[in-house]
């Protein structure tokens, strides 16, 4: 087992530390709240000579992602960090990165999209990017944000995957909260991530084009290949989670099943509120109530099989969405979780809650209410309204 270093860091400090230890070849970045600190810290590491990275201070997030794409095409280990509107401005390039099968990591410090303008947390930024062909990992706290960075890099660079990867964590709630964390030593990180040796790149001396027009004769095949890579990536994610677990003792899976074995009511949630939901779960368990929490760690590729299996014996499920998709029938996590359960012989009753938008605090009361509502659903034997809200006034 690798040596562990006891520390206390904010989520942003944890990400900056991970990036320092990874020592990427190129970082292109443009600061935006609440991810700004990561860029500050990293620029300081560069100025102090603590990393060998070529740091490119650009004039927009569109250019930050363009820098990463160019660097990755030239065989560099690269990545960036952003939030909210910064991610929105990268949109066009997100698809370019994954479509050209360029591995890189992007830390998304989740923040609400405008408008009206709001700098606080929700998941409207990264949820909107869920169909851009990127791997997406979500982090409950600073420890997961730190650990996910190393695993995301390995997943992205794996020859069966070659897709860029996002590591998401909640803006302010974890990015600006100091908490205990266990760090790894540089040497162990170096060994875990290894040296990046892409099979082909722009400056390997052999002629290669990246990004020319893809004609009708080939475009569809390339999209098929990208989709196949996403399918294959699930096994790679599992393998790399296992390797990381063997190294650190911190065992991660695609989903975390918390007291789910005999649960009759379950809450499906991701990022920081999963912790708060667990506290509520513990308090209800202490009273003998059969409740559980299913936390999604990997959202793309979507672990449909694993989620369906975990929910197969549950009577009623509440899926929490910290972003609305404005489909008028529920949020993005709900749509995928409900679809995943379609083939189950005994489908659980399932409702959706939009919660915590724009930094609205998510106290334990929200989850007590949701578990209580699930009791009603079971009692009635039907869901009633599936598209619900919790923590919003006037509902």
């Amino acid at each position, binding site marked *: 087992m690798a040596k562990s270093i006891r520390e206390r860091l904010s989520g942003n400090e944890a990400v900056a530390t991970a990036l320092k230890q990874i020592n990427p070849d190129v970082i292109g970045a443009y600061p935006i709240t609440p991810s700004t600190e990561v860029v500050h810290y990293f620029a300081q590491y560069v100025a102090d000579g603590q990393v060998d990275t070529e740091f490119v201070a650009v004039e927009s997030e569109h250019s930050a992602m363009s820098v990463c794409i160019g660097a990755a095409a030239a065989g560099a280990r690269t990545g960036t960090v952003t939030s909210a509107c910064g991610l929105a401005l990268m949109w066009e390039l997100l698809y370019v990165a994954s479509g050209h099968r360029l591995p890189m990591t992007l830390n998304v410090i989740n923040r609400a999209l405008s408008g009206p303008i709001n700098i606080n947390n929700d998941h409207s930024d990264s949820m909107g990017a869920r169909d851009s062909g990127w791997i997406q990992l979500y982090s409950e706290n600073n420890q997961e944000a730190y650990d996910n960075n190393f695993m995301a890099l390995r997943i992205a660079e794996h020859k069966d995957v070659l897709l860029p990867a996002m590591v998401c964590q909640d803006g302010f709630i974890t990015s*600006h909260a100091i908490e205990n964390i266990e760090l790894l030593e540089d040497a162990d990180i170096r060994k875990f991530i290894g040296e990046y040796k892409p099979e082909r790149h722009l400056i390997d001396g052999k002629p290669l084009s990246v990004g020319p027009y893809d004609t009708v004769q080939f475009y569809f095949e390339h999209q098929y290949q990208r989709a196949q890579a996403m399918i294959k990536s699930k096994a790679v994610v599992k393998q790399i989670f296992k390797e990381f677990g063997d190294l650190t003792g911190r065992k991660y899976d695609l989903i975390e099943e918390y007291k789910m074995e005999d649960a009759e009511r379950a809450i499906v949630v991701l990022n920081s509120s999963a912790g*708060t939901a667990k506290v509520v779960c513990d308090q209800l368990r202490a009273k003998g109530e059969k409740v559980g929490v299913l936390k999604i760690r990997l959202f793309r590729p979507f672990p449909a099989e694993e989620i369906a299996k975990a929910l197969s014996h549950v009577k009623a499920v509440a899926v929490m969405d910290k972003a609305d998709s404005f489909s008028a029938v529920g949020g993005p996590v709900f749509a995928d979780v409900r679809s995943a359960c379609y083939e189950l012989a005994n489908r659980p009753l399932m409702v959706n809650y939009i919660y915590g938008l724009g930094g609205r605090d998510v106290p334990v009361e929200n989850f007590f209410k949701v578990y209580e509502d699930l009791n009603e659903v079971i009692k009635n034997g039907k869901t009633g309204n599936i598209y619900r809200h919790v923590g919003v006034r006037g509902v």
Partner: protein
Amino acid sequence: MSSMLEIRWHGRGGQGAKTASLLLADAAFDSGKFVQGFPEYGPERMGAPITAYNRISDERSPLHSNIYEPDYVVVVDVTLLDAVSVTSGLKKEGAIIINTNKSPEELKPKLEGYTGRVYTIDASSIAEEVLGNRSLSNTSMLGAVVAVSKCIPEGKFMEDVKTSLNHKFATKPQVIEKNMTAIERGMKEVKSA
């Protein structure tokens, strides 16, 4: 879950309530605890009311919400008593610690019937005398909080906070000793009714 101490700080932007909460988190971490220290961000501007929080426990707390039923409330700016319900949810077995030159008895009418312990400390005057600036009251408030809450053994705290200040003021070493004096005076001069 084992016992957990929850502290809520009320200040105004620019007074260092967030910094004090992070210093407390640092010191509690150094004494072997699991900590959380986080601010609640409203409009970021000088003078606007801000809130910061601490959780200190023997096991990691997975809670990621604000604190609604704190064990202790710290008021860095006494004018907030007229603007914010600082005693909201404060446990009666806990205490409130206020930066003021008034006595606890004088302030009680403003505390919305709070029946727990009330402490006062003239942290602004300490800051003026020791640091030459009335608005740098956060370090003596930190001392007062440790003395009242006993969340960290005092001797251990003085060692640990010195380490934190050395780190925070690496480029301004001349202010470290003065802040240590302010902390010490905060611990000694805090008084209850």
